[in-house]
């Protein structure tokens, strides 16, 4: 098991990065830092996915013309996780843009990025109505 932990260092490093992202997302009161935490979580997921596709001793999935009689599965690593990472990057860019736009609107209305102050001000607004 210890050998496995040492050998799988990419897996648990990506998991630690993921937890750091969750920590930022949950504990930081600044909205921009929350979005940064979400992006760190995304990055950890890409690292994990990309490392899952690796196969010992094989090369990147770009065909150069030299096969030397070997089939593709004897030459190239798994291309599917790479394709999934590409999908994930685009979705995370879209989510980040949406969250930043919402943050801009919140900042324009409440003049602060601190979530506590925003919640407090919004509660007061509701009380007034």
């Amino acid at each position, binding site marked *: *098991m210890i050998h*496995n*932990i040492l*050998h*799988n*260092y*990419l*897996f*648990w490093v990506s*998991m*630690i990065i993921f*937890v750091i992202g*969750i*920590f930022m997302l949950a*504990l930081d009161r600044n909205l921009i830092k929350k979005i940064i935490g979400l992006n760190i979580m995304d990055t950890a997921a890409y690292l994990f996915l990309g*490392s*899952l*596709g*690796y*196969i*010992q*001793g094989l090369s*990147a*999935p*770009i*065909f*150069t*013309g030299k096969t030397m009689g070997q*089939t*593709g*599965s004897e030459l*190239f690593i*798994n*291309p*599917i*996780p*790479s*394709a999934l990472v*590409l*999908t994930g*990057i*685009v979705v995370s*860019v*879209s989510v980040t*843009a*949406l969250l*930043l*736009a919402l943050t*801009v*609107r919140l900042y324009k209305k*409440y003049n*602060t990025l601190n979530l*506590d*102050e925003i919640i*407090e*001000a919004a509660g*007061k*607004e509701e009380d*007034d*109505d």
Partner: protein
Amino acid sequence: MKKDHKLVRMWKEGDWDLYENLNVYTGRPEKKNRKLSFPPAPMPETAKAQTRAFYRLFTVLAVVLCAVLASSLIISAAVMPQFGAVDAPAVNQVYLRYADRWLADTGATNIVAGVILNYRAFDTLGESHVLFAALCAVMLLLTDCRDDRKSITRHEPLFNPRKDVIITQVVKILIPLILVFGIYVVLNGHLSPGGGFSGGTIMGAAFILYAAAFGFEASERILSPRVNKILTAAALIFYSLIKSYSFYTGANHLESFITNGVPGRIVSAGLILPLNIAVGLVVCCTMYGMYSLFKRGRT
């Protein structure tokens, strides 16, 4: 001698309390919809203590949760199959099929391009639409119709790059190189690492750099809001039509009216090249549009 104001006289004589009658003096009625004040008024002590206790509890709970999550994830990493193992569950029939037969199926020398734009092209269509939907949502959130100019044009920045010789001259040299590199990455997406998403981002970066150095008036001569909208919509419609054609021919996304050609040539790999160009256009326009929206509130 100047005669005192009636209220001042009252105050001097002592029968007018300044603080009590402030509202009476101004004649202002009690506000019903009180505007918010910043910084917010200080909370009473008990409420403050309650809030502090809540956040302490919240922090402790979050730390415990994160610790439990981290330990369980690391234990799961220890019992996972070895990194790079040939018999890992990810190395299954799908991988064997893709790795062994992609060249005959797609004709692209970049297997990832073959996977995302041929085997799983529908996935990529969804991705492009997610980007488009995000652009629309940002547009809805940041475009302020009521006063178009006032709220959107921010205060003048302290540093104006348009007057800086170094930045403008360097940008003049860099922009063509960046654009050519972006077009190269898009067009060689099926031959080498790259493709529509990365190349589109590079081209979008070139337009963003241009807008940042010379202002939006200059960049609008090339990529006006109208051209931006038309390009994005046309590229998405083109992609959707191509993919509906592939549904029409059996929905396995492999047969198309263009043959695969000789692998390694620019014009080969069937539909991957036009799809890459469409994706590149969508990504380029979306990146520039988002920068423009965040910077000045409209595309």
